[in-house]
Every structure is written in C-alpha cells, then in structure tokens.
C-alpha cells in the first residue's frame, strides 16, 4: 500500500523527490534509516498551502522538496478572458497580503500599451497607498516570523496595526482587503475629505508605537537572536544566482530596489534609502523589514507634505482597446520585484498576461538552503522568504 503511494508520488513529483521516495530503505553511513516527513499542505504554521517533503536524520534536514500548486487558481488564464479593466480585481487576489502593489504592476503595464499620461495627484496617491500597503505587509511578516519561533504575542500587535491601516484603506477604497483602487489611467477616486490628516495622525501614532512593540520586544531578545542569527545564511553571490529580489536579496547586502533603480510613478520625486543588511540570515531580514517600514513612514510623510492638486483619473473613454504590442510593468512589492507582462492583440481582452511574482522565484531558495539546518529552523527560513501562497501559485 505504502509503496504504491510512493510510486504515485514518484510519477507526480519528477526526479528530485522521487530518488528518495522510490527506495524505501535508504540508510546513511551508520546504517541508520532516515525519516520521511510530510509537512503541509495543511500545516498550521506553514505560509499558506505549501507542502514540504523532508528527509530527516534525527532533527537535521537532509533533503527538502517544496511542492507548490495547492492554491493554483489559473489567474493568468482567467485574465485572458476578461476585459482590461476587469482584470484589476483579479490581480488583487494574487498576493493577498500586499494587494495594492499587484494592482499597480498590472495598471502600469496596460498604461504602457495605452500611452496615457497619469496626473501627478493620481501618481502621488498611488505611491502613498502603495507604501501603506508595504507597511501593512511588512509588520505582519515580522509577526509571522515570531509566531514561527514560538512567540504568539507580536503577531497580534502586528495585526492591530494592519487592522488600523485596513480601516484607512476602507475609507479610501471601500474595501478592507481587495481594494480595486488603482485603475488603468489613475485611481478610482480622490482621497475623502480629511483623509490626509487622518493618515498623518496614524503615521505619527505608528512611529511612537513601533519601537516599543516591534523593536524592543523582539530585537534584544536573547532567544530570538539565538534562533535567528546565522540561520538561513547565504552569500550575495548565491542570492543573485538564485534570482532573489526584495528583502531576501537586500538582507545579503545587495542594494537592489526597483523603486530606486527603475523608478516608476511618484517614486522619482521621493527621497528614500534602500535598506540593506550585511548578515544575510533571518535576523538580517528582520532588520531589513524594520528598516523598510521606517523608510515607508518617511515616504508617506513626504507625500502627505506636498500632495499635488488636480484630477486623479485620466480621460480613458468607455472602452479600453490598447494597441497591439506588449507592455511590462515592474514594481517593488513587499516581497520583491513584481512584474506584469501584458500582450495585446488590439481586442477588448489581453492576449496573454504573465505575472512574475517574487514569491515563486524566492521559494526556489528552500531546497538549496534548508538541508543541513535543524527541523525547527525551516520555519524561520520561511519567515525570511515570507512567501504568500496566492502569489507563488497564482
């Protein structure tokens, strides 16, 4: 029975995992059998629906095979059958922790095809909401990292902040999570009356709470340091070779940020630093995220200080029918470089849409980096990559 299961798995998984699963009694040099363990897809601490097939020697991981695809919803194919504006709410569902960047990337790609001019106010509001989205994603990421290390409290403080930002988003966009706010040609609507003041007030409050709840509580903790320092260590060369982007790349010391190197929208006018950390381990990624939240706060303050006046939506006409050709929009989402490639054949619907999500690429790191670590270290490494199930499976 069991061997039959294994054979089925062997067929479905391809060569990597099968080498282990086909032979039922592989022994190590001491003649001791290793232990197979199946983590996920229904695992309470796993990020979304990820299945890891592990081979354990005691508590040490000998081999780790991530199996993706348990949340595949064929977003790319669905996008081919929707009219251009109707794809935007679908992109919302890709990375459900940082939706606003997903909309932004798609709209940038289609705008390249349409050659529309975005008004300065719309651009500024886009950048403003995008940075709120980044805070909203990074703070829970830190909380999840702590949850995976066994501390339950920071995640609730993190979700307190996330809920408050969601309330801001609800007042601006109308929804708490699936915003559908950034539209092709601008944004859905201008900020409501008195909203910039409310945002300013919230940001000030966040600054005062941030150090207490997310830095003092976590950073100095000896157990946190022991659990994260040197765990998931990688070199900048390795990170570049793996094609990592976002925090996993920047925590090794490579200062790559799409906002800085390929500026889009309002980011040209903003003054911010690319946060890097030399450590290249889980602790470094934690410091990187904390630093990026601080940079986001700084950017939001800059935008709110001189928010341009004017319209927020370009004149688009009733139906969108872009020229034939292709457009690429790349943005820096909270998890790395997110790029959308839209191919148009001149009709109502896109001919092909491809989402390059950072999670899919960053996840490849797992099978390279996990072997050799202890079993409890897998979860902090997941916290370093911080993937989102909807984004890697699309």
């Amino acid at each position, binding site marked *: 029975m069991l061997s039959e299961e294994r054979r089925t798995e062997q067929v479905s998984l391809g060569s990597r995992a099968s080498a282990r699963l086909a032979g039922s009694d592989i022994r190590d040099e001491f003649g001791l059998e290793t232990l197979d363990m199946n983590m996920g897809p229904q695992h309470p601490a796993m990020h979304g629906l990820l299945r890891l097939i592990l081979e354990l020697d005691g508590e040490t991981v000998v081999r780790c095979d991530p199996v993706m695809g348990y949340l595949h919803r064929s977003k790319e194919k669905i996008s081919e059958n929707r009219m251009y504006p109707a794809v935007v709410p679908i992109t919302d569902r890709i990375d459900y922790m940082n939706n606003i960047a997903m909309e932004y990337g798609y709209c940038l790609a289609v705008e390249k095809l349409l050659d529309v001019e975005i008004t300065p106010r719309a651009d500024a509001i886009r950048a403003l909401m995008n940075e709120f989205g980044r805070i909203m994603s990074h703070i829970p990421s830190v909380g999840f990292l702590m949850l995976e290390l066994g501390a339950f409290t920071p995640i609730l403080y993190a979700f307190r902040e996330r809920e408050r930002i969601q309330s801001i988003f609800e007042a601006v966009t109308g929804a708490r999570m699936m915003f559908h706010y950034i539209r092709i040609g601008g944004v859905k609507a201008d900020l409501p009356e008195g909203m910039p003041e409310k945002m300013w007030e919230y940001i000030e409050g966040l600054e005062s709470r941030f150090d207490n709840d997310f830095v003092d509580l976590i950073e100095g*903790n000896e157990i946190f340091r022991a659990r994260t320092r040197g765990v998931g260590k990688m070199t900048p060369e390795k990170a570049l070779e793996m094609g990592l982007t976002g925090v996993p790349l920047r925590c090794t010391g490579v200062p790559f940020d799409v906002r800085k190197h390929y500026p889009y929208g309002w980011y040209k006018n903003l003054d911010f630093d690319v946060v890097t950390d030399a450590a290249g381990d889980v602790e470094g990624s934690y410091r990187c995220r904390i630093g990026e939240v601080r940079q986001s706060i700084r950017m939001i303050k800059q935008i709110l200080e001189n928010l341009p006046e004017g319209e927020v939506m370009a004149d688009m006409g009733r139906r969108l029918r872009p020229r034939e050709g292709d457009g690429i929009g790349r943005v820096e989402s909270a998890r790395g470089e997110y790029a959308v490639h839209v191919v148009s054949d001149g009709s*109502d619907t896109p001919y092909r849409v491809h989402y390059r999500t950072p999670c899919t690429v960053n996840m490849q790191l797992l099978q390279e980096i996990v072997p050799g670590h202890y079993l409890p270290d897998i979860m902090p490494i997941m916290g370093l990559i911080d993937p989102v199930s909807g984004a890697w499976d699309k």
Partner: protein
Amino acid sequence: MPQLGQGILKGMGITFKHIFDKKITRAYPEYKRDLPERSRGMLTVDMDRCIACLQCMRICPDHCISIEQTKRDADGSGKPKPYAIGFVIDDSRCMYCSLCVEVCPVNCIYHTEEFEAQAYNRLELARQFGERPVDPTIDPKPAVKKKKPAGKAAAGQGAEGKAAPKKAPRKAPNKEDAA
C-alpha cells in the same frame, strides 16, 4: 554574555505593560462600527430605473449577474424598449469589485451597507430582483474574444469590435429559456 537576560526582561516588561492597556477588540454582534461612506457591501438593484442595457452583466468578472431581457412598452410611449424581466445577483460569486456600479449608466445598481451574507445553500445566496426568476447557475456568456489578424485594416476594427459583445449577451437569455 554580560547582558544575558536583559533583552528577555525588557520584552517581558513590554508585555506586562500591555496587560493594563485599553483593549482593542470590538465585541462584534453587539458592537457594530460605522461603515465608511465608500464601503462596498452587497449589491442591490432599483428595477424601476434599470434600462436592461446589460453592461453590468458584461463587465462582471465573475459572471455573477444574469439578466433576462425582453421588449416591453413600460412607459406607455408606444415604443417597446428593452426590459429586464429577470435579474439575479449571485452573492456566492460576487467579489464586490464595484465594476458594475461604475459602469451603470442610470445608477440603478449600487452597494448597500449590508455585508452579512449567510445561507445553508449556495443557491439561497442568489437574490432575484425581476418578475421572473433566473437560474443563477447558468453562466451568462462571457464577452466574446475577438482576435484580429495582425494585418487587418483599422476600418473593420470598430464595426466588428462593437458588434461582437452586443451579440453575446443576447444569446444568453435565449439559452436560458431553452433550459
């Protein structure tokens, strides 16, 4: 090792202080917060104003709106106009994207503040607005994809492109009649 335990004690001090902080939970069924003006709740239709233009049905990414269209002389002008005899919004599919609200030329479909949708059966979530119920399980035909050969002239583009989506929804009610 000189500072061993300091970070732990500092963190514990922070958690201890939080014990006396104000609670942020809201006891939901007793306490309902005010929804902001733009909040997007469940959809509703003002059938008196609907002109059965089918634009909402066409734009809907989830095909959650199905409309059965007939011709009827509703306002007594002697000239039969399109009339939505059946109108269903399937809330089990709706994703509250607000595209139908924006596209409606007479503002007859709009969001309410209601958001508590629950039922024992998926079909109960399909809310009928018209005189005649429409089967929500049948997909209205999605917008037809018109692929044009690369070399086609620009003149043909407009005429054909406009014709295509108009045809599509008209087919849908016929199908449903047959079903």
